[in-house]
């Protein structure tokens, strides 16, 4: 009977090592919740500004000021979200005894960054041709692809989040003018929902 236990332990050990050596499992659910909150706040600020300028739903004619404000707002959201993700992830990595910068996290970042950078560049192209209305759907779709791609190297759940973002992106593409609303749904609400699910599934048990 003791031998049985030993064999079972062997199998568990094999499985855990295979996973730990290829996947970055320290992604924190909390960072999803906070990033979602930041995105919602950013979208609210943007909405408020558009209302004030009376530009909601009109995709054409962008003044210099409006553009500068939007870019600053977007960059602010991005920086805050990345910082919060970094903070919560390194905290969890410490607890998991996994280093933040190892082969698995590098692989995850590379696989996330490739579609993301392509998406960012593509949004630049869209902007260059004045296709402002397609910016929100394009960013959602490329972000979704990045998540699906990255899911091979981290917690599997990210994959479904990616599919949801892609689907939302296409719905948004047929509802141009509601870009900000869909953007808030995709980057705000979905992140929060997923963050909560992941938090309950992985983080809470370990505490």
């Amino acid at each position, binding site marked *: 009977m003791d031998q049985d236990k030993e064999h079972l332990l062997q199998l568990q050990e094999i499985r855990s090592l295979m996973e730990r*050596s290829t996947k970055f499992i320290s992604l924190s659910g909390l960072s999803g919740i906070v990033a979602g909150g930041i995105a919602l706040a950013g979208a609210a600020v943007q909405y408020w500004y558009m209302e004030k300028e009376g530009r909601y739903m009109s995709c054409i004619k962008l003044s210099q000021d409006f553009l500068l404000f939007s870019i600053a707002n977007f960059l602010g959201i991005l920086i805050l979200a990345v910082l919060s993700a970094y903070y919560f992830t390194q905290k969890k990595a410490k607890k998991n005894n996994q280093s933040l910068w*190892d082969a698995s996290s590098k692989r995850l970042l590379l696989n996330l960054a490739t579609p993301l950078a392509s998406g960012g560049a593509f949004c630049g192209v869209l902007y260059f041709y004045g296709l402002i209305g397609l910016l929100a759907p394009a960013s959602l779709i490329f972000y979704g692809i990045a998540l699906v791609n990255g899911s091979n190297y981290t917690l599997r759940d990210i994959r479904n989040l990616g599919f949801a973002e892609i689907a939302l992106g296409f719905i948004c593409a047929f509802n141009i003018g509601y870009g900000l609303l869909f953007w808030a749904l995709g980057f705000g609400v979905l992140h929060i929902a997923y963050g909560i699910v992941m938090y309950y599934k992985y983080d809470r048990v370990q505490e």
Partner: protein
Amino acid sequence: MKNIIQNINKAFENRIRLGVMSILMVNDWVDFNTLKELLQVTDGNLASHITALEKEEYIQVRKAFIGKKPNTSFAVSKTGRKAFQEHLDALENLINSKKQ
């Protein structure tokens, strides 16, 4: 019973050797320090088990330099992959036969 245990490979009975093989099965080349970190063992301990696996020709060794520091990486060999797979199959069979 005898022939079920037959395929349980003695070379993998040790926890560290088993760990090294598990990691190498799913990665291309892994260097010494990464193995050490994942398995949480000392240099000497890991080195001796790696030598054992090397002798069985289950793993390949690649020595290189990063700057002036020597850097050794390991990968699983064809023989090693086959042996490990057989070991896993044997474990599986053993557990399945117990269930019945």
